[in-house]
């Protein structure tokens, strides 16, 4: 699973996530979503490091971020 999950149907195509991704992992889609916007997509999942810059900037709260962690240390992020 990708670290960065974009809810395409919430996206309004503002491009802020794309502009703020330090890894240039995101792009705007050619497609239109139900509301008629071109949503952002994780075009280069391999570049994404889950830094959540995109999610922070998304005005629609349309991005979820996941982080990899050892199974044994499931709670580590809480101390991070």
């Amino acid at each position: 699973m990708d670290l960065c999950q974009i809810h395409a149907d919430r996206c309004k195509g503002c491009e802020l996530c794309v502009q703020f991704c330090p890894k240039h992992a995101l792009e705007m889609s050619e497609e239109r979503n139900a509301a008629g916007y071109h949503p952002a997509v994780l075009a280069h999942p391999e570049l994404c490091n889950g830094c959540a810059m995109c999610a922070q900037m998304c005005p629609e709260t349309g991005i979820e971020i996941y982080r990899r962690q050892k199974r044994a240390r499931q709670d580590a992020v809480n101390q991070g």
Partner: protein
Amino acid sequence: MTTAMNSQDGMNKQNGGAVASEDLVDLKCVFERPKSLSDKPFHYCPGCSHGTYHRLIAEMIDEFGFMDNTVGICPVGCAVFAYEYFETDMIEASHGRAPAVATGVKRALPDRFVFTYQGDGDLASIGMGEIIHAAARGERITVFFVNNGIFGMTGGQMAPTSLIGQRTTTSVQGRDPRTTGHPIKVCELLSSLEGVAYLARVALTSPKNINTCRKYMRKAIRAQTEDVGLGLVEVLSPCPVQWGMSPGDALHHIEEDVVKEFPPGEFVDKLAGPVKA
């Protein structure tokens, strides 16, 4: 890699759940929709920070564990439907009067967390009397103030916070200080009032600033919960549509121009000193 998010600064700790994965590591959700934010998609224009600020408020309500204990007051302005977006009890106030409504609620129910959400037309134009007096009385309420320098909802008229020279539908030649005065700076204005416990301004223009905003919001909330006085966080927010800019350009405009007129920072912080009533 810059400024990695960490859970204390806005991650949604309570909600993080493990996600099964095939290899030796789990994928843990570290950024998702706050619980206090409803599922309803925002009606805001693309790139409008009303949505961002809503999310931050919801994060805070989750973080403080206040979902069951909150009464929020919405403005009349683009955020007029804010009551649809929060999972807390919500009241729709009349234009500008949210601080008076909040006073009514807070005095009636002193142990609830009461916040207002207000735009610059709402708070700094028609509602000036109400915010000043709520601040002067030291109402234990928290004000989330969105300054986008324009009347967004009604179609882009000049606000008291519009920049000099700014073109709006009621200042098509650009705002002229001779006839319309200079922008009102709410934080500067309120800072002389003793009932104010916390006052800060931040531009919602980058992940870093968003994090700063969270810090300010926490203090503004504590100003209420610790019974010190009124807390207010002003965010400099874009209105891409009425400014006639792309969302990205609008953020740049804030960082280049708006902050010159509206310097970010903390203006009053009575939490830092000894807590007094």
